[in-house]
């Protein structure tokens, strides 16, 4: 047995956009144990349920994260609508699904860029983020915001998208798709990229299940788990099938996310084709009744939980958001055991950690 050393990794580190700390126990350049530590930016947003009415709380919830903001708003509204027995118009379901899938495209492009930056491929990073800008432009055009959109409300959505803009959205995405194919070729076939990702950070299917991994982390290990299969939104009508890989390494996690970008673009195009005319919201008035409702959503990083408990008041008694990164930390700790010290940044990145979400 070699000499053991503890190396602190984070909370500030070039590959970490947000603070998380790992104590890495090292033996001859191999990690034998990783002890995570979070909580540097805990904001206690769930506690604001005591001060904001249920109609206002959506603005707080969507500020949990600047990347999957729309999904958080949707998940929260979903629980309140369930609690109050509100059925939203079909057009609103379509619009929510379109914005949510657009969020997945920009989130995955952001992540692919960060990954490229992490393994030192600067031009690849810049091209991924250049494409992502176009998605942000689409958000700005359709919602007025590039990060926080505030278009989801209890009872539906606040803004409609006209036919012309929807068609333009598909044209932009199809154009992007062509350029993305060149980047995909580099991510999949470039030998230097493969050297950094293939066989690194292996997570078996059994471990993924045992450690309750979610999202692309689980799907890259062959676990068929995607909340879009539960029939929320309009995924049933879009022919959704989850993207599954079986290799369980960093490369497989990259492939899952690359495939999901194309899949989301196709689903948006199909949703634009099928979207019906009609109302975009129903009025919701009165107190949130006593009761509770638990909902889940497939965020870009994986399954997210939303829970609301009503108290026959304008104020809810409790809300709860469990974000995907929470559930992927145990799997990350497991995959770090036995890896080379040089691979730690890649491994941490491939769970696509979102610490703002985790420390909502």
């Amino acid at each position, binding site marked *: 047995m070699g000499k053991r050393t503890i190396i602190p990794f984070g909370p500030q580190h070039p590959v970490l956009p947000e603070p998380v700390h790992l104590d890495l126990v090292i033996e001859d350049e191999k990690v034998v144990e990783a002890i995570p*530590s*979070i*909580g*540097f930016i*805990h904001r*206690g947003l769930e*506690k604001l349920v005591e001060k904001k009415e249920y109609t206002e709380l959506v603005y707080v919830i969507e500020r949990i994260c600047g990347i999957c903001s729309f999904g958080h708003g949707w998940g929260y509204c979903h629980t309140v609508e*369930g609690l109050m027995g509100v059925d939203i118009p079909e057009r609103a379901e379509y619009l929510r699904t379109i914005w949510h899938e657009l969020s997945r495209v920009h989130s995955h492009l952001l992540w692919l860029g960060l990954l490229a930056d992490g393994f030192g491929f600067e031009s690849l990073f810049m091209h991924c983020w250049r494409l992502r800008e176009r998605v942000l432009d689409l958000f700005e055009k359709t919602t007025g915001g590039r990060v926080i959109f505030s278009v989801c409300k209890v009872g539906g959505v606040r803004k409609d998208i006209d036919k012309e803009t929807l068609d333009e959205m598909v044209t932009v995405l199809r154009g992007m798709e062509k350029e993305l194919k060149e980047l995909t070729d580099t991510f999949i076939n470039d030998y230097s990229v493969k050297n950094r990702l293939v066989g690194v950070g292996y997570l078996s299917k059994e471990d993924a*299940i*045992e*450690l*309750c991994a979610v999202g692309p982390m689980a799907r890259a290990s062959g676990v068929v*788990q995607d*909340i879009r*299969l*539960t*029939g*929320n939104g309009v995924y*049933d009508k879009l022919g959704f099938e989850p993207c599954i890989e079986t290799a369980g390494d960093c490369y497989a996690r990259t492939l899952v996310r690359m495939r999901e970008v194309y899949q989301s673009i196709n689903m948006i195009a199909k949703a634009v084709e099928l979207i019906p005319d009609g109302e975009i919201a129903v009025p919701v008035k009165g107190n949130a009744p006593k009761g*509770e*409702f*638990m*909902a*889940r959503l497939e965020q870009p990083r994986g*399954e997210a*939980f939303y*829970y609301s*408990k009503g108290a026959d008041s304008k104020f809810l*008694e*409790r809300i*709860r958001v*469990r974000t995907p990164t*929470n*559930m992927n*930390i*145990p*799997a990350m700790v497991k995959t770090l055991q036995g890896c080379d010290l040089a691979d730690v940044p890649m491994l941490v990145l491939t769970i696509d950690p979102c610490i703002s979400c985790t*420390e909502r």
Partner: protein
Amino acid sequence: MSELWKIQNFISIEPTQLLDKVQDFKAEGYRLGQVHCTKVSEGFELTYSLDKDHVLTNLRLVIPEEEEIMSITGVYWAAFIYENEMQDLFGVKFKHMALNYGGHFFKVSQPTPWNPKD
């Protein structure tokens, strides 16, 4: 059309049944989705959400504030995230946690901020 998302399955159990129930669910192939705590007049209301084939089952129990509850980290190791979170924010006491940060998982400026003692 799949409408699995509409299923709201909450099962009330006694605190002493928790570990056995969780073990049974795991043996049946359920995975842990989340655990959360709500402060109620009787103490703490804990909800353990377990998923199998995209169907969610929620185990619900209430414990007095001073009572310890068995940790489920021996069954689902990943539960250490939630147990430490509840310990830090509410002051829920767990017995036999596999990974106990001793109240320092979150860097909070006051102890148990969501259940203050003053």
